[in-house]
């Protein structure tokens, strides 16, 4: 129901704030431990500033980094008339502004959406996707991506992307300094504090990644549903997913940090890959679409 989708968008906006403050808190916690260890309060201020800057930075620039990492190129209406008009129509149906359209020269079929809000949205498709999908399947896939835009998933996933990388980077620095740092006076630190601090350092990146995965998986189901809702054609989404399953393969330019953005997982699947996947299994997505098919 579209009225519910409006609500999803609104609730995602408030979730963004929760997410950003959550990540800021983790960063400040790391800083707090660090300042205890070195017995200096300046460090926590530096970390606090870093957390703030990181949030602002990922809010404004993550989309540009994503485009660089994936090697996507902006296209216009003349070059990709079919794709462009199809997205135009989806935008009219959903009442969204027209996003910028990018194409990735890549034979593995895939697509993603990014940007901080619907006015600054970007949707990208690989040439492989455009080649193998029929018109209605391509429409379903692009409607899935526009669903991410409409539900503000793009903002959430973009910010998670920026902050997960930041936390990984920070804990890495702190751990290295602890192990290789010079000698200092440790008498005023209780061993308990040290122990808790160490656990925070180890857990922080793991928690960050788990949050990223969980957020991403839920969003995929929702975007599938939005796609079926906009196109009034859940079967097109189902057959697109089946095609992605059979002809889906790892992409040339793999990058864990951008994996959660795509419609189908671009990484090679290993055992751990499956456990910590950013995407629910395609079978589950198809099953949920079929379950809900009579509701559209």
């Amino acid at each position, binding site marked *: 129901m*579209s*009225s519910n989708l409006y609500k999803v968008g609104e609730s995602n906006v408030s979730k963004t704030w929760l997410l950003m403050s959550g990540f800021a808190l983790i960063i400040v916690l790391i800083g707090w431990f660090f300042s205890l260890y070195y017995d200096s309060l300046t460090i926590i201020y530096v970390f606090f500033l870093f957390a703030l800057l990181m949030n602002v930075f990922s809010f404004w620039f993550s989309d540009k980094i994503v485009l660089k990492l994936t090697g996507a190129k902006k296209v216009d209406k003349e070059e990709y*008339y079919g794709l462009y*008009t199809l997205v*135009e*129509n*989806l935008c*009219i*149906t*959903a*009442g969204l502004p027209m996003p910028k359209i990018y194409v990735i020269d890549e034979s593995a079929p895939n697509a993603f959406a990014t940007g901080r809000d619907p006015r600054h949205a970007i949707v990208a498709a690989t040439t492989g996707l455009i080649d193998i999908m029929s*018109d209605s399947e391509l429409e379903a896939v692009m409607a899935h991506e526009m669903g991410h835009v409409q539900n503000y998933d793009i903002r959430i996933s973009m910010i998670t992307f920026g902050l997960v990388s930041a936390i990984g980077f920070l804990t890495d620095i702190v751990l290295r300094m602890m192990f290789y740092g010079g000698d200092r006076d440790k008498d005023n630190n209780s061993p308990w504090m040290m122990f808790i601090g160490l656990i925070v350092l180890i857990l922080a990146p793991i928690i960050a990644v788990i949050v990223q995965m969980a957020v991403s998986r839920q969003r995929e189901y929702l975007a599938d549903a939005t796609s079926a809702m906009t196109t*009034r054609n859940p079967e097109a989404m189902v057959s697109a997913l089946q095609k992605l399953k059979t002809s889906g393969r790892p992409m040339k330019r793999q990058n864990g940090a951008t994996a959660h953005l795509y419609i189908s997982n671009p990484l090679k699947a290993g055992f751990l890959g499956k456990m910590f996947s950013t995407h629910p299994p395609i079978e589950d997505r198809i099953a949920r679409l079929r379950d809900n098919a009579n509701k559209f």
Partner: protein
Amino acid sequence: MGITTIILIIVVLVALMVAGFYNKFVKLSTRAKEAWSDIDVQLKRRYDLIPNLIETVKGYAAHESATFQKVTEARTAAMGAQSVEEQADAENMLSGALKSLFAVSESYPDLKANENFLELQRELTDTENKIQASRRFYNTNVRDLNIAVESFPSNIIANIFKFTKKDFFEFEEAAAREPVKVKF
């Protein structure tokens, strides 16, 4: 807590609720109006394309004047339509007339090879898809408004402030009417 305090609290709560519902109706009917103007934009684009199309086809098939006449009349009728229902009927007529125009042009190979004609055909198809898309958006918004106008307790506020249900724009989808040859 005195009785006056309780009454005061109730009054404030009711006032807040009325204001909330009122704002909801303002939002919903504005959305529906906006959606209608989106449809209007696309319909106008179609009206603008038609004279060009007729001119182009005339150059190759001058004696099909009956078909041109039908398209022109349907266009004029559609442009003058007042209510949503009238508009829908007129647009259906126009779509039908355009379909017969394209059917006629099938028998003129020179026309079918004409760049201008192909471009116009592409533009028209695109516009028709966009009319369908904006129609869906409009109907979604109208549905939300109508649900709010009819359900309790928002229907009370709708009655007081005269927010009424709007008509759906029922426009037969080309695919539902008759089998269409698909060209890629």
